[in-house]
């Protein structure tokens, strides 16, 4: 099945791209997706250890199963707000 994978901040810089469309098997978990990305994109391997993942705009964790047509995003811990702490 097909999913869309978005990269932000440091992840985008390391990936060298903003997004990726890819085919994944049904029932694939977030952890399995991270393993696949580590294998396919060596540049991102180290990032996969501390990356945050969202699936359809909600935070998703290792055991979560990815649904068809999901919009997945990978990014570092957030750092919005101001410059005040």
């Amino acid at each position, binding site marked *: 099945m097909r999913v869309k994978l978005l990269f932000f901040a440091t992840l985008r810089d390391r990936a060298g791209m903003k997004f990726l469309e890819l085919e994944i098997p049904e029932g694939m978990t977030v952890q399995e997706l991270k393993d696949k990305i580590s294998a396919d994109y060596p540049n991102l391997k180290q990032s996969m250890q501390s990356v945050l993942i969202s699936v359809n705009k909600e*935070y998703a964790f290792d055991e979560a199963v990815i649904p068809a047509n999901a919009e997945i*995003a990978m990014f570092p*811990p957030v750092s919005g707000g*101001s*410059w005040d702490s």
Partner: protein
Amino acid sequence: MQPSNLPTIFSITESELDLNDLLAQITLPNTGAAAIFTGMVRGETRRGEVHDTAYLEYEAYVPMAETKMKQVADEIRVKWPAIEGIAIVQRVGKLYPQTPTVLIACTAAHRDTGVFEAARYGIDRLKEIVPVWKKEVGTNGEFWVEGDYLPKPGE
């Protein structure tokens, strides 16, 4: 008044923040108090490693950021039911020192019903769960500022 009728504004914008306009949008006929937090780009930092900042570049995962801002507003309404209006705005793009980049404002009939605490909670939560990142560009080059909060299931 039901929460569904209470004004809740959340936005990611490239435009200048207009505090007068945002405050007016969350002021109801029985509003008597507002607490507003704004954060600015600091041009000089003295805490930790002393350095100068030329500008910050903000980016957001916009649709998820809006979802999470709404979640922060919902959490505020559960914790402080007297809150009437809530505005949460993050400015993105290239932002220079002394420029407001983020705003959280909460209104209520009275100032002793949690407006200050709610605004403080709002900025703390925004920095934990709303997907926005900033890159500092300064005299020493540029680098991404990384947060350290790891959201838990259900956040």
